[in-house]
């Protein structure tokens, strides 16, 4: 059999299949979707006559399992048949039109479940109440005499299924309020059940943003000025217009040029051949060596924003029997999502539509509206599956603005913009660069009496939400170092403590990078505490226990990993342990790494024990998956990751110059999930922070070498 797929054939072939792909973009609940004619019970739940239950998910699924976890929570209260559950995304436009019926769509800060568990559970509970009421009305009995299970309402021997009741239930008014189940009564939530979204990821059928095909669609490749803040001076479109498939060459904003062609490969190769002259602007000479010197000066600068202060650090350090001091640094990182940035946009003078993988559909809609020149009500964003997010696809939708700007040049034609990996590497929204100077005072007995932690470097908030900088202070810089609170309280009790920040912002766009500032703060604090313990000739675990005496949840995760790793017990020759703990994103986490270092200085990370107390655990096996993944993300940065600038340009271009962890580098990970109840913490990010310091502390135990500058691959362990 032979299938002829010429370019024309290709376009018609994709037209033929795109109807199928578009099934995912139906307008749920409002118009005809896969969901069919039964009205919704509320924004979260729709039950169909065939007994399938559609649960709406406002947050984005990017691998972290939130889609399954949120569905579990709704289904727990709804008491439907889990095997009949389907999920769908409401669109940002619908959320806007319905006065944000689905609340926030933002999927970052490990907030997907912890910020919405209450109202999504209510959605399930209220829908259940309507179904019970509809049955009770039919049977003329009291609702309190009815029970539900697996999608059926029962009263004595009478039974009606949710599918039979849904149409009547949808006509009823919901109760004003409703009692949610305590976690102790959960039957579905809290269990390590399988994800809902695995099957399509096993046979190539999952459609990611990059895979979208629309009738008549063209493809675009883009090149932004390699120097941040630079502009396009000129380009010679005529030089590439004659190339096969090329339709148009457009300038995008001040700083970028795009080629539009029938296929992306033709667009990309034409773009590479396009002569462009850049006005490199004021940052043409920026480089990382100079940035490091500027940050270094900030470590001793007289002015700094205070994050935490108690007692009198100056006096404590002056009067200390012994002082310990060290300077650490943490470089820029790229998110390096496996799927590069991409968006498909279609623009007409009346309407702008965007299909894109995004962590925040509403922010994508706002970006589309701004770039299109149309009011948000005339725009729509269809969220496509994300090939990784890690924070890159959340706060800033630069690629969406670009796609819309390109589509505006071709009214009525959908244009899919895909970045090359090189473009993605050079134009990230980078994990900020910082340094930290820590000074500790010890008394004669080896007790920690004072600690000054001076952070110098880049502020994400100043780069993305400058309106949130108050009195020159970026509160997010002190992540995990707060004096108290539910988000990231410092567990250690130090009588004299000062944590401050000298803001130094290089001209490199910063971004929220999975784990955010908790990552480097944990390296700084947990490695330095290890230094303090060794200086005082004390056991690092014992010192931490002393300082955490009044922080039982911090202490519990620390003790859990120490016990399971066999801290203090004999172990195989050459094997050494390192510890770290921190609180972040509302959860308590700790790790104990076991490593060996060969005589040649080769590091082997044998295993890592990790403990998490997220308060409530909705799906423990997915928490384990997030914890395992956190070590890949955190250790990729610690071992390999570094974005540097030279001549104003990012030097790394691809995975050959920005290496990341692979299978052979991966340690065994044993996860202890220990929810203690009473609070809701996140799990996607906190463990990343303990990955690096646990390994670095183990390296010190093995070699006596203290690694204070990352990545490790630039250091010698011999």
């Amino acid at each position, binding site marked *: 059999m032979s299938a002829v*797929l010429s370019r024309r054939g*290709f376009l018609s072939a994709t037209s033929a299949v795109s109807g199928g792909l578009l099934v995912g973009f139906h307008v749920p609940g409002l118009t005809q979707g896969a969901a069919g004619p039964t009205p919704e019970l509320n924004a979260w739940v729709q039950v169909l006559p065939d007994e399938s239950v559609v649960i709406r998910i406002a947050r984005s699924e990017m*691998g972290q399992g939130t889609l399954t976890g949120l569905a579990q929570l709704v289904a727990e209260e709804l008491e439907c048949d889990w095997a009949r559950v389907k999920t769908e995304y409401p669109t940002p436009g619908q959320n806007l039109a319905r006065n944000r019926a689905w609340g926030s769509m933002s999927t970052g800060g490990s907030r997907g479940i912890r910020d919405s568990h209450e109202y999504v559970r209510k959605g399930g509970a209220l829908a259940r109440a309507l179904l019970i009421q509809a049955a009770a009305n039919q049977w003329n009995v009291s609702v309190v005499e009815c029970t539900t299970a697996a999608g059926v309402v029962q009263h004595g021997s009478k039974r009606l299924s949710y599918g039979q009741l849904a149409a009547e239930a949808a006509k009823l008014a919901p109760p004003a309020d409703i009692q949610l189940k305590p976690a102790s009564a959960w039957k579905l939530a809290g269990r390590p*059940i*399988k994800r809902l979204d695995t099957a399509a990821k096993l046979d190539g*059928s999952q459609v990611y943003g990059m895979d979208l*095909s629309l009738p008549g669609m063209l493809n675009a490749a883009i090149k932004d000025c390699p120097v941040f803040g630079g502009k396009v001076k000129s380009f010679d479109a005529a030089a590439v217009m004659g190339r096969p498939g090329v339709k148009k060459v457009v300038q995008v904003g001040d700083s970028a040029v795009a080629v539009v062609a029938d296929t992306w490969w033709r667009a990309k190769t034409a773009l590479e051949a396009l002569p462009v002259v850049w006005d490199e602007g004021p940052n043409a000479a920026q480089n990382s060596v100079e940035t490091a010197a500027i940050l270094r000066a900030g470590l001793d600068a007289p002015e700094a924003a205070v994050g935490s202060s108690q007692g009198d650090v100056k006096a404590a350090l002056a009067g200390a029997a012994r002082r310990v001091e060290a300077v650490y640094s943490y470089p820029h990182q790229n998110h390096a999502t496996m799927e590069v940035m991409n968006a498909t946009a279609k623009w007409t003078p009346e309407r702008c539509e965007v299909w894109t993988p995004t962590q925040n559909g509403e922010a994508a809609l706002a970006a589309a509206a701004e770039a299109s020149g149309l009011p948000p009500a005339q725009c729509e964003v269809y969220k496509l599956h994300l090939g990784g997010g890690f924070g890159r696809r959340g706060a800033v939708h630069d690629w969406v603005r670009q796609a819309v700007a390109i589509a505006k040049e071709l009214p009525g034609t959908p244009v899919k913009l895909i970045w090359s990996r090189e473009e993605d590497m050079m134009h990230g929204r980078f994990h900020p660069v910082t340094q930290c100077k820590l000074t500790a005072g010890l008394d004669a007995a080896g007790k920690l009496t004072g600690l000054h932690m001076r952070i110098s470097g880049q502020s994400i908030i100043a780069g993305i939400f400058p309106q949130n900088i108050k009195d020159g202070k970026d509160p997010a810089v002190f992540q995990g170092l707060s004096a108290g609170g539910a988000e990231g309280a410092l567990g250690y009790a130090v009588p004299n403590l000062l944590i401050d920040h000298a803001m130094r912002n290089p001209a490199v766009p910063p971004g929220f990078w999975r784990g955010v500032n908790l990552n480097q703060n944990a390296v700084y604090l947990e490695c330095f505490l290890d230094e303090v313990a060794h200086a005082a000739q004390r056991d690092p675990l014992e010192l931490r226990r002393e300082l955490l005496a009044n922080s039982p949840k911090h202490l519990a995760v620390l003790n859990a990993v120490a016990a399971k790793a066999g801290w203090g017990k004999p172990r195989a020759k050459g094997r050494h342990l390192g510890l770290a703990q921190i609180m972040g994103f509302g959860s308590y986490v700790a790790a104990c790494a076991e490593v060996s270092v060969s005589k040649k200085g080769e590091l082997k990370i044998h295993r890592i024990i990790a403990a998490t107390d997220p308060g409530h655990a909705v799906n423990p096996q997915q928490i384990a998956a997030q914890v395992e993944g956190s070590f890949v993300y955190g250790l990729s940065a610690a071992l390999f990751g570094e974005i540097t600038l030279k001549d104003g340009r990012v030097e790394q271009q691809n*995975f050959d110059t920005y290496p*990341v962890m692979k299978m052979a580098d991966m340690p065994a990970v044993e996860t202890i999930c220990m929810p203690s109840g009473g609070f809701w913490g996140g799990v996607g990010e906190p463990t990343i922070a303990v990955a690096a310091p646990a390994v670095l502390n183990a390296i010190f135990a093995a070699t006596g070498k203290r690694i204070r500058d990352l990545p490790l691959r630039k250091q010698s362990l011999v």
Partner: protein
Amino acid sequence: MAELTVNGKRVQFEAEADTPLLWVLREQLSLTGTKYGCGVAQCGACTVHIDGAPVRSCVMPASALTPAQKITTIEGLSPTASHPLQKAWDALDVPQCGFCQSGMLMAAAALLKAKPKPTDADIDAAMTNICRCGTYNRVRAAIHLAAGQVQRKQIPIVIEGGRA
């Protein structure tokens, strides 16, 4: 008009000689399960089989291939996701975002064909694909499971219920 054999079918397409197989698959043949991740054979997201051997299709010019060579993509790995690796992947809930998993599965399938009972060292050597979500440990466990070297109950990942 060029001609290739993909997933058992003869296909024809038009493309410049430098066009990588990856982009022919994705853009000319609508086989988007094979992913673009780096374009320089570093990440393995584009892995397909050519006559059973794993090849990074992003650096393989389509014009270098002939119709006599059998190209298999993730869409052609098995008729109904029934390859032992796909079953093992499903049993252990391996994928997170899933973007790299087509390449992971194709690399693993080629490995098992060459070495039906791979050691961990064999897996380390053959599985050089990049996963940023961090599924490596479950990928390793699923390969051993598919190879029959361990039983499901011996793998310390508890996954209950779920859908068929």
